[in-house]
């Protein structure tokens, strides 16, 4: 055990456990047919990337995520009830039920938005980096994305700009080894992704996601450097425990591989480390876990009991309030037919 023992490991564990449990509840919501949307992507197995990186962020920092971003948002301090409501497509959700799991966002926490376009949220951090400098916000902006986005060209355009302009920006690849059914070595030849970042002049690191403290340490270095004007890239190596989306049974990978992969469990690893190093007793952790389970159970009830957005809200927020609004098809037809009658 030569990873640095950090007194905040308990906090990191708590964050990871909350993510794990939340995601399990999201799966339940889906199975009960109460989530909005046919696609739900769970971050089970990847908790260390979310917890480790977010622990290195400051309140003023901003970020974008990919479609598998529940964990990151929770680690950043999201209210799991409002998250679950949004995933359920309810009015009480972060986006009033219009966005859902793949389009969750919260300006208060600097969450510039999840994205259903692989790579789509990456360049926004360049803009946020410009704002940070121009408006003296002292903020770092982080783009979180999957290994699949490593093959999207816009990532390299963004890396190049960050490097060229010395922006306070960090690119974080959560390398869970798969993009849908495609194992990473079926998508690219050289998976030492930090080489790409370095070739563009960024700081770059690859870290094993088993130990959240190592993730945090790497992130801290890179975030601090970014804040000082040297942007960076971090790839966190984890394993996607389950299917791509909730319904995917991963027929394209061997069970043996999955069993092996799931051994790389950052939540369990942190738990054992807490116990082994004497930071916390198992009994206390059991209680913590139970409290989290209860907290997360309540999110389902909240989501289920919340109201769906009213049909009329459909025409709201296409443009800012007070600006010319779209006319509904029905209203137009009514108008035309009424004239016709007249």
């Amino acid at each position, binding site marked *: 055990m030569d990873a640095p023992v950090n007194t905040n490991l308990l906090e990191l564990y708590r964050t990871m456990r909350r993510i794990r449990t939340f995601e399990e509840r999201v799966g339940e919501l889906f199975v009960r047919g109460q989530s909005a949307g046919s696609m739900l992507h769970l971050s089970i197995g990847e908790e260390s990337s979310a917890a480790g990186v977010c622990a290195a962020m400051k309140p003023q920092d901003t970020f974008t995520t990919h479609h598998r971003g529940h964990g990151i948002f929770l680690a950043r301090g999201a209210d799991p009830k409002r998250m679950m409501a949004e995933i359920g*497509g309810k009015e009480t959700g972060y986006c009033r039920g219009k966005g*859902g799991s793949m*389009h969750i966002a919260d300006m208060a926490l600097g969450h510039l938005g999840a994205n259903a376009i*692989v790579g789509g949220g990456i360049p926004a951090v360049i803009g946020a980096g410009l704002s940070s400098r121009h408006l003296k916000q002292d903020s770092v902006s982080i783009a979180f994305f999957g290994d699949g986005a490593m093959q999207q060209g816009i990532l390299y355009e963004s890396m190049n700009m960050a490097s060229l302009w010395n922006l306070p920006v960090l690119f974080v690849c959560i390398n869970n080894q798969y993009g*849908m059914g495609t194992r990473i070595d079926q998508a690219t030849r050289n998976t030492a992704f930090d080489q790409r970042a370095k070739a563009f002049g960024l700081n770059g690191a690859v870290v094993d996601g088993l130990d959240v403290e190592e993730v945090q340490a790497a992130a801290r270095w890179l975030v601090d450097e970014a804040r000082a004007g040297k942007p960076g890239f971090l790839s966190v190596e984890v394993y996607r425990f389950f299917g791509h989306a909730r319904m995917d049974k991963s027929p394209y990978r061997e069970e043996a591989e999955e069993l092996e992969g799931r051994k790389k469990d950052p939540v369990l690893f942190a738990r054992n480390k807490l116990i082994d190093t004497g930071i916390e007793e198992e009994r206390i952790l059991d209680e913590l876990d139970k409290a989290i389970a209860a907290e997360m159970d309540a999110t389902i009830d909240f989501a289920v009991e919340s109201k769906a957005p009213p049909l009329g809200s459909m*025409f709201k927020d296409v443009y800012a309030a007070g600006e010319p609004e779209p006319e509904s*098809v029905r209203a137009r037809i009514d108008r*035309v037919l009424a004239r016709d009658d007249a």
Partner: protein
Amino acid sequence: MMTSMTYRDALRKALDDAMTDDSSIVVIGEEVGRYGGAYGVTKDLIKIHGADRLIDTPISEPAIVGTAVGAAMTGLRPVAELMYIDFLGMTMDQLANQAAKIRYMFGGQIGVPMVLRTQGGTGRSAGAQHSQSLEAWVMHTPGLRLAMPATVADAYHLLRQSLTKPDPVVFIEHKALYTRKEEIDLDADPLPWGKAAVRRQGDDLVIVTYSRQVFYALEAADALARKGIEATVIDLRTLNPLDFDTVREHVERVGKAMVVSEGVMTSGVAAELAARISEECFDFLEQPVLRVAGEDIPISVSQELESGSVPSARMIADVAARMMA
């Protein structure tokens, strides 16, 4: 011989049969091989035709389309798959500036015989970035053919025909139709490429549409028939070429027309159809051509809001009934 088949299976069979007949066909896209396609259209084709012809790609849409362009110029007949039409925005340069213009810019030296297969539309509460109907962007691009099958038989035949065309074809499936099953006779002679199908004939109103809205229009027509209103329903099948002759013939006969499209109303396909009918059938029209189309808003993930954003059988029937009032 009559068989019962889903839209998905008809598409799969079209690819399978075409690949058997023409060894220059390769399929290029995300998850098209081992996974069998995000919507299962290429399921197990890799076992039949091999990984050299069902080429799983990285997540690189611009380069996927560009790869197809280059392959088509050098002897292959690529089928590029875009998992969602919503990703078109990443590829419009390769599609509109390259694929569509190469024959023309190069003075007719060479064509780009590729098919871009993709799927669009609402129906799976997939949210704003996975539910769009962007065929208007394609229809507005000279050089691109555009096929949008509604029926199972058309899923098969239009795809087979697309795979014989000398120019790029954008082939848009509808995500809500994959599981739709129909009795069909695949040996029967298909309608020629570029010909609209009159799915129902009636003397009171013509409904011009395509893709999933064909079934909504037919459902509406049934409801209207119960009120004594008889509608003609025209399924355009391809938007480029556009069989306006069939549309004209029926609109002139009937004198009332409605166009239906799931795409956003403003500056969309419904606008083109309405403009064209209004222009060419002016003297025969008793009423304005009405557009029943997607609202001018993004699609919500919420199911109610999603289905409220696009035409429904009920809305078509309502509007039609009011046109006849």
